[in-house]
């Protein structure tokens, strides 16, 4: 799995879709800051199937990104393909208070 972070937009009929590749850490700051500006629809899905390690700085950046999307774009975010590790980490750090895993 690649370690350098990148965000890949995808095509979907009724929502905005973004796949996160690589580790989410301090080096993801620029891309996660720009992401809310790309939201066009009221439903957004983040795909973590190709995500590597997410550290505490990555969690902070994700929280900031999710807050901005909720507050400025009034959009709902759903999280796809979370690993057991990331599920635990998101529970532990409050990410699920801002975005729910897709059922």
């Amino acid at each position, binding site marked *: 799995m690649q370690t350098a972070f990148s965000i890949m937009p995808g095509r979907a009929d009724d929502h905005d879709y973004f796949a996160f590749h690589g580790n989410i850490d301090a080096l993801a700051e620029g891309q996660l800051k720009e992401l809310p500006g790309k939201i066009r629809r009221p439903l957004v899905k983040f795909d973590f199937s190709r995500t590597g*390690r997410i*550290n*505490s700085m990555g969690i902070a950046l994700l*929280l900031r990104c999710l807050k901005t999307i909720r507050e400025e774009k009034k959009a709902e975010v759903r999280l796809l393909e979370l690993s057991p*590790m990331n599920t*635990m980490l998101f529970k532990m750090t409050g990410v699920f*208070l801002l975005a729910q895993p897709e059922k």
Partner: protein
Amino acid sequence: MLTNNTVLALFKDSEDETLCSPLLTRIAGIVRMVAGEDPAASFKNLKVLGIEPALIIISARLYPAARLDLVSNLRNIFPGTEFLVISSAADPFPPLKLLAADMVRHLAINPAGSGNGNGDMAKSWFLPAVHNLVERRSWDMADYLKPGTPIQEFAFSSSEQKEALIAELETLIRGESPDADLLRQKGALLADEMLENAMYGAPRGADDHKIYRKGEKRAIFPREGISFRFGFDGETLAMEVTDGWGSLSPDMVLKHLAQNQDRRELSDDTGGRGLFIIWRILDHFHVSITPGRQTVVGGHLRASSPMDLETPRGFHIATHAENSL
């Protein structure tokens, strides 16, 4: 004043003592007491006899649950004594803010009564922890690994070495089972957090501001003494990072754990979140601080450790005098 190696253990009642007993069986010379109306009065008598315990172990059912002022009263009688609280895994987790306020920096979890069957494992960790406290020794990761387990050490000269070290650690944990895979992921994240703390959190300027920004590439100078040690015995992974800054304080560590544990306010700043993650993932979390000289953050976890947030975790946060290095 005769200061000796006496260990005192205090319980709320006989049921509480029975619950804690399995953890305490191999501690030499331990004196057990069920708290009466005024346990502090009994301890004053010990003081009169010239006995100052090296360690007082208190059941969380007694403190803070039943007697909130117990530790502060005992600390007035025995100012040089360390305190260790034992909390049953089946009981509510003791409020960290209270422990922080009373400067209780050692918490052990007693699995008895929780039905998770880790009693022997807990005993094997508890005994060296008690010995370390009584003898004022630092945590030694070898105590928690099978005898003869190799311990690898890496000294850092650049932040760019972090990923190579993490890859090395992942390679050490062999196996394709889900447990092995999860342990690799946990180990990688722990190493990441520990090294980020040492490389970006520990270096402080004269006014206590952080010198480096997370994520920036930086040289690490030999006098910073940043090194990482780890070992894996096939079941338990132990690791620790050392830095030569000694800028972390015990109060700060407990404050970070308490704030993130409460999580009443969802904050996107990173204040102590890394330390909180380390604590929650490790089976046991150790911090050893020599102020202004050195900080060691480490601990250990088993491949079979449960992956949940409900399992309570212990910690040991020790400080050492500057001339102890």
